[in-house]
């Protein structure tokens, strides 16, 4: 077997094992929390008889491990089950929410990744001069402000004061792509500002590290233009750490945007998960947890594989 293929298979198998472990953790976590779903559905109206009926109906009187394996059996056959609270099919309702989250993450990534890398390259080219300082200061400032505050500031200025962009990022299928992009413009802006600093600074640091090497000096002595040196000679050797940080930020764009979703009332996974956690709707929480864990693990596998491919020393292990 080709060593790369072998590596890929190994990583994926490890990832699946990690997913299984994550699902156990999530199940245990939601089970030990106080209160249960029957209690939460019935709320203040929970008489002992009604509680007992509902628990029976939801199959909650089985021991925990039986419930877990029942659920796992369903998932392995592609059945995520139905939500305990409103009886909706989880795969359908989550599919739509996941689609929305990925849509937002995609457009945030499309803007932020090239921008971050581009700014990083510019910062290296003019290192310690004013463009570098301006870029560093601004990105450092936006990454330091909590994202919900950035969101509120953006809403205050752009929607309330100037009424230029909508503060509600509600999208649905009946809207055209243009309308959807207009609707999500503010959350995209906030997400870009949030992830930009990390990626840009990492790019800058990684390239500067390579710039110390002797072969860069040779390139300079050959008389190559500074920018050509950076993107032809320095950047390819700095790609591994850059890909790592980009992947980490992409994963964040999918799983870490709960707060931004709440601020802009965006119908994504975050709000969906929070609602169901509050109601102890274990199947939904597990399904969401599984998707989030899969995204994280998947992104990390991609980052690993890319950095190995980008590095000949790792590509041909002795």
């Amino acid at each position, binding site marked *: 077997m080709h060593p790369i293929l072998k590596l890929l298979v190994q990583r994926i198998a490890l990832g699946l094992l990690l997913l299984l472990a994550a699902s156990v953790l999530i199940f245990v976590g939601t089970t030990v929390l106080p209160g249960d779903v029957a209690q939460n*559905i019935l709320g203040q109206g929970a008489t002992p008889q009604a509680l007992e009926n509902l628990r029976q109906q939801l199959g909650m009187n089985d021991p925990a491990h039986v419930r877990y394996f029942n659920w796992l059996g369903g998932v392995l056959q592609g059945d995520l089950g139905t939500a305990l609270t*409103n009886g909706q099919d989880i795969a359908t309702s989550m599919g739509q929410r996941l689609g929305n989250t990925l849509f937002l993450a995609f457009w945030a990534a499309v803007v932020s990744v090239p921008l971050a890398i581009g700014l990083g390259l510019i910062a290296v080219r003019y290192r310690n001069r004013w463009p570098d300082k301006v870029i560093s200061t601004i990105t450092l400032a936006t990454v330091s402000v909590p994202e919900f505050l950035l969101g509120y500031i953006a*809403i205050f200025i752009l929607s*309330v004061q100037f009424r230029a962009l909508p503060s509600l990022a509600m999208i649905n299928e009946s809207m055209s792509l243009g309308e959807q992009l207009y609707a999500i413009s503010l959350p995209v802006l906030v997400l870009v500002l949030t992830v930009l600093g990390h990626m840009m600074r990492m790019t800058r640091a990684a390239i500067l590290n390579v710039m110390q090497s002797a072969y860069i000096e040779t390139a300079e002595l050959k008389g190559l233009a500074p920018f050509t040196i950076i993107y032809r000679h320095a950047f390819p050797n700095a790609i591994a750490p850059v890909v790592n940080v980009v992947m980490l930020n992409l994963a964040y764009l999918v799983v870490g945007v709960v707060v931004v979703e709440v601020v802009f009332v965006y119908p994504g996974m975050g709000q*969906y998960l929070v609602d169901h956690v509050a109601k102890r709707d274990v199947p939904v929480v597990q399904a969401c947890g599984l998707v989030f864990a899969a995204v994280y693990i998947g992104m990390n596998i991609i980052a690993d594989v890319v950095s190995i491919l980008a590095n000949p020393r790792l590509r041909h292990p002795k």
Partner: protein
Amino acid sequence: MNDELKYLLSRAAQGKYSRRAFMGKAAAFGMTAAMANTLLATAVRAEGPVKGGTLLMGLGGGESTNSLDPALAASQVPFHVLRTSGEPLVDVTADGQLDMRLAESVESSADAKTWMFKIRQGAEFHNGKTVTPDDVLATLLRHSDEKAQSGALGIMQGIESMKVDGDMVVVTLSTANADLPYLMADYHLMIQPEGGVANPADGIGAGAYKIIVNEPGVRHTFEKHANYWDSSRGHYYGVEFLVINDATARMAAIQSGQVHIANRVEPKVAGLLARAPGLTVKNVSGRGHYVFIMHANTAPFDNKDLRLALKYAIDRQEMVDKILQGYGSIGNDIPINAAYPLFDESLPQRAFDLEKAAEHYKASGHDGSPIILRVSDVAFPGAIDAAALFQQSAAKAGIPLEIKREPGDGYWSEVWNKQPFCASYWGGRPVQDQMYSTAYQSTADWNDTRFFNPKFDETLLAARGELDQTKRKAMYAEMAAILHDEGGLICPMFNDFIEAVGDKVQGWETDGVQEVMNGLAPHKTWLA
């Protein structure tokens, strides 16, 4: 008034002349902006409702776990969805009268045990079926069944039997209840075709608007039901609810004009929001109240003097000023206020009196160990701060309170109705009888003050069957006096419903039965 101004006023009221231009002209005639505004609003009302348009409401209190099954509704957005798409038998007006909806009239036997609802002819469900007495009966039967898990089950439990008799639905009670028609106004009891037995969450009702899009926790859209029976209501072509749980986002949406109405304005921002252009902040006193509850059968709260000491040691006005920012009124240790029918004004208001508090505390012989008060943010907005104010004022009377913060998660299952002293809230009920029997009768499931008073229970039952309003009022006064002195309820304040309403919305009425005009804004308002 000058003829030209009169002419302009009528043009502006019909929407043919812009509001801004009218205000400018009015100023030129020497009129203040406030006067011109009032004049215009009156003229607009006189002009009558404008049909058409889409009302956008930004609502907090919706979750992606919400169902369309009327039995399961518990939070604000499902409440509004039901009020917009469903039609009840009867409704309660702002001044506590019955408003006949699908029931045309209601009569009772002399003993208040048998009630006859005459069902209206010609009302139609959204699926084109005519509303029949059988549908009404099936709906009521479904809510009486424990399996339906209905929020109205408590109301239905007093019913012995129900049957259809011609165009009447006859309800027979096991014990007399003079309030039965009021109880039928409960928002869960929306009439569904065949009672919604086969598919309770299909969202088909007989209200002014039918459901088009149902995305729980995101948005709900409605379209006018063309064959709605009451032509005096439902002026919009469509209604859209956007679920905005984040308070800041909701306020931003109304300020930027993306919604016409926003519910649940927080008291602390209401004053600031009122200064924003293009909207008005409306507040109406409701029946909801914030409480501190003691278990009257658990030490140390089983001592009447200690309970009285704590009741005297709370500064109610300070709470209304600081926790509600003035958007509310002080409570009097009973769960009833002037918003209820048959409220008795004669009960003296309990004042903040440190001397009396210290006196009662001394008489209670409490050993001086700290009294633990459990609170959480979810008990009511500002609960933690209210507890801190209570702690400070009690300390002045020498009563040591210790605040224990509990996690919001699980507060309603682990703390409320379990721990002997905690913070909580009540949303109010349509009539006094229901409020008392829900939480203060000895046998109530939610007797969260562990109040067991035979005299109180006896009067409650007697009042329930009494059709003579004067006698009933006297009985309620007696019960209020018992609870005021003996009970474990410390009720410092009644909270207002506060809403932000865009200037385009006309026909707004003051209605504090529930929030946003008791859920009737889509039915009674229109866009100028």
